[in-house]
């Protein structure tokens, strides 16, 4: 077992054969790296510091099941009792319950056309009829070409005002959820509902635009 630092966070690395797994005990034993013969298998996206700030996972590990959760706060390591604090910065705690949506949030439209899913009598009710495309395999920059950006801009422009305001602040300008809630006087739950609908609409528009 080796200890080191990643972006200023103390980490421990466990090795087994050609695999090295790196964890951050201070972040609830979050897995921050998984290497096979030096090749990184985890897609960390915004990085560990962003993770500590937002408590959110922004990357999809390329390997699963995901080795970044613990079932409990107490466990044994190298003959020592290890106890993790149950408060912050342990991620994925319950910050708040989603508040009851109010009428102004607008109609509750599904993120994906219900026709894309199997019916109640199917062996897998609610399962995909056809899987969504693997966008990671698109040619580089497909989603960042002018045409795709035009689709994004026109879709955002067509959103109901509240959704447009939230996605613009969060995803275009990069504001935090807290900043958006404060600026627009929204509860965290309602901010998330609006963000969810806006992002779902933009994804759907991009999907239709792609070949």
């Amino acid at each position, binding site marked *: 077992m080796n200890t080191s630092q990643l972006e200023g966070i103390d980490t421990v690395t466990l090795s087994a054969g050609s695999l090295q797994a790196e964890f951050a005990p201070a972040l609830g034993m979050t897995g921050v790296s998984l290497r096979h013969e030096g090749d990184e298998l985890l897609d960390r996206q915004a990085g560990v510091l962003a993770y500590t700030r937002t*408590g959110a*996972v922004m990357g999809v590990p390329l390997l699963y099941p995901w080795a970044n959760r613990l079932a409990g706060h107490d466990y044994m390591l190298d003959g020592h009792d290890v106890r993790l604090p149950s408060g912050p910065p342990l991620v994925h705690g319950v910050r708040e319950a989603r508040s009851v949506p109010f009428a102004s949030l607008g109609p509750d439209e599904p993120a994906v056309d219900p026709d894309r899913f199997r019916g109640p009598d199917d062996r897998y009710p609610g399962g995909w009829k056809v899987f969504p495309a693997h966008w990671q395999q698109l040619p580089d920059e497909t*989603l960042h070409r002018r045409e795709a950006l035009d689709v994004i*801009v*026109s879709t955002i422009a067509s959103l109901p005002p509240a959704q*447009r305001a939230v996605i613009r602040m969060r995803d275009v*300008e990069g504001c935090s959820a807290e900043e958006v809630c404060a600026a627009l006087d929204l509860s965290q739950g309602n901010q998330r509902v609006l963000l969810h609908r806006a992002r779902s609409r933009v994804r759907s528009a*991009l999907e239709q635009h792609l070949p």
Partner: protein
Amino acid sequence: VSETFEHISCQEVVELVTDYLEGAMPPAEVARFEHHLSLCEGCIFYVEQIRLTIEAVGRIGEEDVPPEIRDGLVEAFREFKSRP
């Protein structure tokens, strides 16, 4: 860990993805969500699509915010807040 999951469907995953990415999910729900992903490549791809969408939306902010989504925002939001 011997725990019986109450399974969620793909149709539920697409509605929960934002709560998941925002870190706003209770731990038991995170476990169900990730359990589903570990078994369902279609939903892995969906979550990836959402993530790539967020990234692509972020790109339009690197230039000036286009007038289509810049103008009228304050007025639009005032209208939104004044509804019942």
